[in-house]
């Protein structure tokens, strides 16, 4: 496949002024002396309030907007010297309203750029089916449909497939998941991140949603009114060390919680809980619990069943599964600390059980461990932001 690796994108002192504006100085959408480098294969999210110039910056990469001064370079080449239509065919472009061609079938929509580039018919057909499969649609079902016959989420996927058709080294995405409901958005975000790992395309991604920026970006460029770059850093750095009051306000007072979304349970040291096996005596369970009120019940395969409150156990007899609290939260090493925390707070035990891929017991996660992870991250020295 052509260009299966990403290209670098560089803004070099890029300024865009809009004249004939009644605003003082820079009007909305203006960009002021923007310099930043997106290394190949990274997802750079441009985030900021409306009118901060993030979309303008994006559109200067495919020359839908021409800078007033400065240069944009792709793999070191000044794009001002590339013919705009040729340039755009090498850059994937996804917009919020998708802009599928309503008069063309899904297959023809996906084939748009390959057709512009004059690919042979057979190659186009094979590529279209490959792409539709890649984005999770059945080519046999959707190939000959029109966009109006698809759901919003499906249309957004087709828009993505169309932008990926020639595996462009650079993709521009302008609020690509802004028009779908939160559940579909979350799914599309996860799918795109998985897809990106495989493709390694360089992505410039515009959003006004800081949570989306932190989730999607390997680097986040926070822009502020007047087209100024307020900070450009990996998401964790941004949350830990906001460069200005504006950034701190923009990432929000809950930036500590947001940082938890960047860490996973597997990165935290797990604690041990008192364990009992099914069928053990109630007396034995009480002994194991010691000072704790709770013991964790495991089955014969060391799979956790649930927490048991030893104070409620009968004085004699053995421990059974139906004595356990079914609401005990289970995590995997991939669960984010943010999700883990919110589940922990919602249950009586306030201790989560961590299991491996075969659902076997690994250890437990306590509220204290989450808090400690946060403190530790906060005092860790952070390398200079790029």
């Amino acid at each position: 496949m052509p260009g299966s690796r990403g290209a670098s994108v560089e803004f070099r002192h890029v300024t865009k002024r809009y004249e004939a504006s009644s605003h003082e100085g820079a009007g909305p959408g203006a960009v002021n002396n923007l310099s930043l480098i997106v290394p190949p294969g990274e997802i750079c999210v441009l985030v900021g309030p409306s009118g901060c110039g993030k979309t303008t910056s994006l559109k200067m990469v495919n020359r839908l907007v021409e800078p007033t001064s400065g240069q944009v370079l792709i793999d070191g080449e000044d794009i001002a010297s590339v013919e705009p239509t040729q340039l755009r065919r090498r850059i994937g472009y996804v917009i919020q309203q998708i802009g599928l061609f309503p008069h063309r079938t899904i297959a023809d929509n996906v084939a748009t750029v390959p057709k512009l580039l004059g690919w042979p018919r057979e190659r186009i057909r094979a590529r279209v089916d490959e792409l539709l499969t890649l984005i999770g649609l059945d080519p046999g079902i959707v190939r000959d449909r029109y966009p109006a016959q698809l759901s919003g989420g499906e249309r957004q996927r087709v828009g993505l497939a169309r932008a990926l058709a020639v595996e462009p080294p650079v993709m521009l995405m302008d609020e690509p998941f802004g028009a779908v409901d939160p559940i579909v958005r979350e799914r599309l975000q996860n799918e795109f991140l998985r897809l990106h790992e495989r493709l390694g395309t360089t992505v410039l991604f515009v959003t006004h949603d800081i949570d989306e920026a932190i989730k999607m970006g390997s680097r986040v460029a926070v822009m502020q009114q007047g087209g100024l770059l307020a900070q450009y850093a990996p998401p964790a750095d941004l949350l830990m060390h906001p460069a200005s009051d504006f950034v701190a306000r923009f990432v929000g007072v809950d930036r500590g919680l947001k940082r938890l979304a960047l860490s996973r349970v597997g990165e935290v040291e797990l604690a041990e809980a008192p364990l009992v096996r099914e069928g053990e005596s109630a007396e034995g369970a009480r002994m194991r619990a010691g000072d704790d009120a709770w013991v964790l019940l495991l089955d014969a395969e060391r799979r956790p069943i649930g927490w048991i409150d030893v104070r409620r156990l009968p004085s004699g007899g053995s421990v059974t599964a139906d004595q356990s609290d079914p609401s005990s939260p289970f995590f995997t090493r991939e669960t984010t600390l943010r999700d883990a925390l919110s589940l922990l707070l919602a249950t009586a035990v306030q201790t989560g059980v961590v299991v491996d891929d075969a659902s076997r017991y690994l250890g437990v996660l306590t509220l204290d461990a989450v808090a400690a992870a946060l403190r530790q991250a906060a005092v860790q020295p952070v390398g200079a932001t790029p």
Partner: protein
Amino acid sequence: MTPDEPLIRPEWLQTHALDVLQRVLEHLELTGIAVGVGFVISFALGLWISRRPGAYAPITWVTGILYTIPSLALFALLIPFTGLSLLTAEIGLVSYTLLILIRGIVGGIRSVPAEVREAAIGMGYTGNQLLWQVELPLATVVIISGVRVATITTIGLVTVTALIGQGGLGFFILDGIQRLFSTPLIVGATLSVALAVAADGVLVLLQRWLTPWARGE
């Protein structure tokens, strides 16, 4: 017309069957030329307007004035120059189609959603590719709506050109008025209406065939 005269004399239809057929064809020819020529002119002007939006207002103004001139007066004004000819009839008929058709074409192109246009340009369409592969196909529904109105209007208007020796089915209407003979008048008027309905039906079918994506919406 005398009170005991029947509305239609069936024997007139029998003796004039060929005559009627010939006038129907003439009517279709007059209409076809008018809408065809009108469409070519309007299409060219419409494309020009799509590149230079400033031209829309003056063009609408001129074609609007043409549209408001009473047809009888227009033909009377043209006769000194072009005589009682097909050309005179068509100049009038064509000029009445322009306002409707240009509005259809410009309105159709403007109805293309902005995001579709932006996506096309963003993917590397040239201006011509955008126009012919995206804007005009998407404008088809609106353009054909314009053609339908223009065609129905023209079919009615063709009857007036009987006054300058053309007229298709208008010949019978004029004949009936002049001779106080209701049969040809009613036959001419009825067939003219039937032609308009039929032509409209054909255009609806054409539009459905050309725009498969718009079905069932």
